């Protein structure tokens, strides 16, 4: 099917080792690595997603999380239309860092940037690790700041595609049909044969998104 193509520039921000690169790897290659080298500078990746009658191409900058590299971040979020601010649900410090990033984006990034707050490594909580960032706490931040919010696991793949899907649905499209939510999600698939059809994955916890 011939469909309109929309590009979305997306940036990932968050403390070191919260799983930014792993989320991207899951989204782009449906893969996971137990030990992933720290990102230095930033990594660039793309992924196309077919959403019904239009295609979205994500142009992703996955930044390095260590504080020392933070001065490079503006270069990558400056022109971004969307941002994933990632924290690790088992690391309270990473949530503090996430707050900082949200604040910085609100102050420095483009006015209508779409921000998704993402609590990663949910699988660890499910397998016995102690949750250190309460769901409500994150939800509160999301609703105060008007963020999309998800808890994900790059390891199991849970909810990862949904983050990108939700962003894709919020972005103003060239075609004027983006309001038909149901149709959008039912038609969604990612044009890489390794990918699962997202309809099957929709039974996870519904994303609490905050449409402002």
């Amino acid at each position, binding site marked *: 099917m011939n469909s309109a193509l929309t590009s979305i520039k997306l940036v990932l921000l968050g403390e*070191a*080792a919260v799983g930014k690169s792993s989320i991207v790897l899951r989204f782009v290659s449906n893969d996971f*690595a*137990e*030990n*992933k*080298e*720290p990102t*230095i*500078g*930033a*990594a*660039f*990746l*793309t992924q196309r997603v077919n959403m019904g009658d239009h295609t979205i191409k994500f*142009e992703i900058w996955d930044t*390095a999380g*260590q504080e*020392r*590299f933070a*001065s*490079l971040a503006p*270069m990558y979020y400056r022109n971004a239309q969307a941002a994933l601010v990632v924290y690790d649900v088992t690391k309270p410090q990473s949530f503090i860092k996430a707050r900082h990033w949200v604040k910085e984006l609100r102050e420095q990034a483009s006015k209508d940037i779409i921000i998704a707050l993402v609590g990663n490594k949910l699988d660890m909580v499910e397998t016995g690790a102690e949750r250190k960032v309460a769901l409500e706490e994150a939800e509160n931040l999301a609703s105060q700041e008007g963020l999309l919010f998800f808890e994900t696991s790059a390891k199991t793949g849970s909810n990862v595609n949904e983050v990108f899907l939700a962003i894709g649905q919020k972005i103003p499209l060239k075609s004027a049909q983006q309001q038909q939510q149901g149709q959008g999600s039912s038609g969604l698939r990612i044009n890489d044969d390794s990918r699962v059809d997202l309809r099957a994955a929709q039974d996870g916890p519904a994303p609490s998104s905050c449409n402002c």
Partner: protein
Amino acid sequence: MGVRSASSSSSPTRREMYQKMSASSSSLVGSLMKTWKSSRHSSAPDSSDGNIEAMQKPASFLRRSTSHTSPGPSHIHMSPLRKSLSGSANKDKSHHHVQKKDRYFTDLDEDWSAVIEDSNTPIPMTSNGGIELKPAVTVGSASDKDQSVSRSVSASASYPNLPRLNKTQSTGLKSQYEQENERKLQELNALMHRVAKFDLILHPPNGNQVNLSELRRLSWNGIPMAHRPRVWRLLIGYAPANIKRQATLLRRKRQEYRDGVALVFSKEHTRDIPTWHQIEIDIPRTNPLIPLYQNPLVQESLQRILYLWAIRHPASGYVQGINDLVTPFFQTFLTEYLQPAQKEDVVKLSPDTYLTHEQLLDVEADSFWCLTKLLEQITDNYIHGQPGILKQVKNLGQLVKRIDSDLYDHFARESVEFIQFAFRWMNCLLMREFNMGMVIRMWDTYLSETSLESSGSESSSMPATSDSSLQSSPVAGFREVSSSLNLQSKHATAGSNRQTSLSEFHVFVCAAFLIKWSDQLMNMDFQETITFLQNPPTKTWKETDIELLLSEAYIWQSLYKDATSHWR
């Protein structure tokens, strides 16, 4: 058995240079031509960054590169290539070396077996530095063959007296198998020759002083695996050149490290938790595909090294990428405890199967001190704002603008910014771009490029191991700053000192690396470019490829010397 060395090997420098050049002729001449073309077309000096006299005078700079007549500044140390390009100022010195070496080789000729016995390092058969033994490299025309041998083996002279080498004269009739065999033999010969050279330089027959500039010159072209640990310790200025003092000093340094660790991990020291955690997180993420680095003992060692370094250098602290930089040292020093045939297996073997706890601590200590020495040379890369890296990236851009203006313009059109791909190249010294074997070969050259003035092994010592000195980080910070200032002022004032630095050479290597792909990159858009440069096709690179890259970098550094005058 009397084995004679070919006398021509005494001055490999110029010949080697041209062999390297001719081996790379297509790409290199191509790029040189590009340079020449672009410089001819640019009629007026570019005022924004134009101090490049050579660019405006293509004829003269071409002449300089070929005729060796122009005087160059004096050098403290020189790679062979450097010497061949640097002109007459060094003639006397190099002549001196040549004479000396001739005499050494006379000795060697007279008593080959004695030299081998003197050395406590066996000749490696499977492991080597700088020599590609695999037969598959180039099996082709005779000239191809010659090139591949001479390119990869700097002392390419073979032993004419070995019977099997001269057995067959009619090359046309030789079977492929025989040819390969013969080439392997030749390479083995060259390797043995090279090993003997290193043996000799590490055990000077008259005197106790290792000739460091000679060692740098030789090491620039690759170090045999058996010698690498010892040579690296010397090149980086950790071990003293005086062989009488080596054992004592290493013992002292290793003890100092143990004391440092004991103190830092004692109750008196309050753990810097964020730093400790960051390192802890990164340890399993270091070289994750090499089994050695998943070994718990190794991980503990690396964690101690990085933590101790970080708290002793508070102005920079632990920065990701430093975890990469320690590993070539660690891996190389481990090989010292392995039999020649096993050295390649260092990446697989668990260290506790072949060394004791104390030996592992020695490896750890040596790695710590060598990492410290290396980072001294690139302090600015890891302090706040990483000004060293930003400057290198900028210099890379300016350099590419001169060497390959088409590519530079193309990047500008596509909005490709150098920092988007080159930041990592600088932060990890290109380690992420190559597999570990290639990185280690590259470091033979890089460590030969390290600055001599920091080679006084006394210059870096643990601060007095008292609680106060450890915990008062402002003091330590001050020390760090002042020592780096000191280093800079030496760079600026001492005309008698080296005129290059590791970071400067590295920028040229990065330029050579980038321009290698120029033709492909010219056809790529932004996304293709970034994707390509983040995953360059270097998986199959062999040492000869690395050596070619280093040679190209070296040549450009010589041609664009004036470009770097304002880098510091």
